């Protein structure tokens, strides 16, 4: 697999065309699964991990599996390539740089399916969809899970369900998350209120890159906390109901912005484009925030010059590993900021975003 070929494409999660894509970036469901005959990854020896890897690869190499998955060993991958896969949401930071020994990931060409091997659990199966698509994602991952299970024995307990290394995942082993872009709730200062309400009903809010990551660029992942005692269907229904409500609030807040401070909002978006197109040094953090303003500007039809795909391309390609791959240079953090500014400047010129 040539990772450099992926560089100029948008993965499934940034395709930007799914249902409710005005405020939903992507839907993701993951299942934690373990093989019955091995200790969990943290307690497995390297030779056991290597056997797990082999069995996982065999199970995923079935010709009937659609889409076809290609396996990539992460253990042998240069740091830059690992970071690249993290940025594309195909692997976790843990798999990239915290864990050791034989481990890897299988994914498809569209980057809609990824299966991490020897993460905290032997398998972390993941399906991603653009926009709000919990049902489609579940149907696909359910079928994929069945296909893998036809070749391996999962660790399963009559009472506790699918057994996982961490008891917070036991039962269904399912974490369903929806990534939302909620700038208007942020501007109108209602976001904290929404999150407090979510905690009460056992839903978790996280930043862009999952557990422990800060929310940046008004992007939030909302996911279920409970995995035991409820069916997958029930969990998905609960999340769906909440997301529908949050979307309603966000859209209302956007309408209020348009009605009460359209000029100020237009100004904010124009200044964001101005900074993106003229800065000579810019952090990824600031880039996220400015691109969030531009994203909102596009949805509120305050600007027309920046196409949606170009926005998503800037979003992913301005991140460190992508940037270094694009320029073909290893960059120190300070040089990255200069290189990032140059990249954004050129990109905006190309698409005529700067007048």
């Amino acid at each position, binding site marked *: 697999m040539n990772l450099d070929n992926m560089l100029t494409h948008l993965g499934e999660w940034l395709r930007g065309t799914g249902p409710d894509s005005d405020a939903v970036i992507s839907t993701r469901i993951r299942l934690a699964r*373990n093989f*019955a005959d*091995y*200790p*969990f990854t*943290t*307690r497995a020896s390297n030779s056991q991990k290597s056997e797990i890897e082999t069995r996982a690869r065999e199970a995923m190499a079935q010709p009937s599996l659609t889409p076809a998955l290609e396996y990539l060993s992460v253990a042998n991958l240069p740091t830059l390539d690992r970071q690249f896969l993290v940025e594309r949401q195909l692997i976790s930071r843990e798999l990239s740089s915290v864990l050791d020994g034989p481990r890897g990931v299988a994914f498809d060409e569209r980057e809609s399916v990824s299966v991490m091997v020897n993460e*905290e659990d032997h398998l972390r199966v993941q399906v991603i969809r653009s926009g709000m698509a919990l049902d489609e994602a579940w149907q696909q991952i*359910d079928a994929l*899970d*069945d296909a893998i*299970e*036809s070749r391996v*024995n*999962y*660790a*399963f*307990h*009559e*009472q*506790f*369900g*699918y*057994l*996982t*290394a*961490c*008891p*917070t*995942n*036991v*039962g*269904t082993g*399912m974490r369903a998350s929806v990534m939302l872009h909620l700038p208007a709730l942020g501007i109108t200062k209602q976001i904290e209120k929404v999150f407090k309400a979510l905690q009460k009903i056992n839903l*978790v809010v996280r930043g862009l890159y999952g*557990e422990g990551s800060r929310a940046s660029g008004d992007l939030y992942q909302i996911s279920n*906390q*409970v*995995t*035991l*005692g*409820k*069916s*997958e269907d*029930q*969990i998905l229904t609960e999340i769906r109901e909440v997301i529908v409500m949050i979307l309603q609030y966000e859209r209302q807040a956007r309408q209020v912005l348009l009605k009460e401070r359209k000029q100020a909002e237009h100004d904010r978006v124009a200044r964001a484009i101005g900074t993106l197109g003229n800065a000579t040094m810019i952090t990824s953090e600031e880039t996220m925030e400015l691109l969030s303003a531009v994203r909102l500007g596009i949805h509120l039809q305050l600007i027309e010059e920046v196409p949606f795909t170009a926005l998503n391309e800037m979003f992913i390609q301005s991140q460190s590993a992508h940037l270094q791959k694009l320029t073909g240079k290893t960059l120190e953090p300070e040089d990255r900021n200069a290189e990032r500014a140059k990249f954004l400047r050129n990109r905006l010129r190309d698409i005529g975003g700067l007048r």
Partner: protein
Amino acid sequence: MNICQFCGQPATIHLTDIVNKKKHESHLCEECARERELIPEGSGSQLNLDALVQMIVGQPTSPASDDLPLNTTCPACGMKYGKFRSEGRFGCAQEYESFRTALLPLLERVHRAQTHRGKIPRRAGSQMELRRLQDDLRAAIEQERFEDAARLRDTIRRKEGSDEPR
């Protein structure tokens, strides 16, 4: 996800300290950290060092009545219960049985449930069904319902035949 070592909620506060050249990791949720006065009330984010040291050195503080001795060992993989308590991860699937007494209240706190209600994998599912049929067969024989027993025996034979692992 790390879980709070006191109440089992997801931990948001992670402490690492080195005492006598030994690394101690603690994971707490905000509520328990406040309860133990690790975080001061109101604004300001300074940790309370005294309370912190006391917690780490004094660890484990009085275990709950349903807790297991920390040196309880999993017969399958040899991991001690104390290691699970401090790291929040099981070493192998058998620990769900080995540490069951301590696990049940933990599951209740985290999930407000103790029993799986979701998907059942096909293989394990058919094994579960087989076990249930065998129980039924035993009961039928004991109660001398021989027609039922014969029917159950045939069903079990058929299922066993089709479930041979590939």
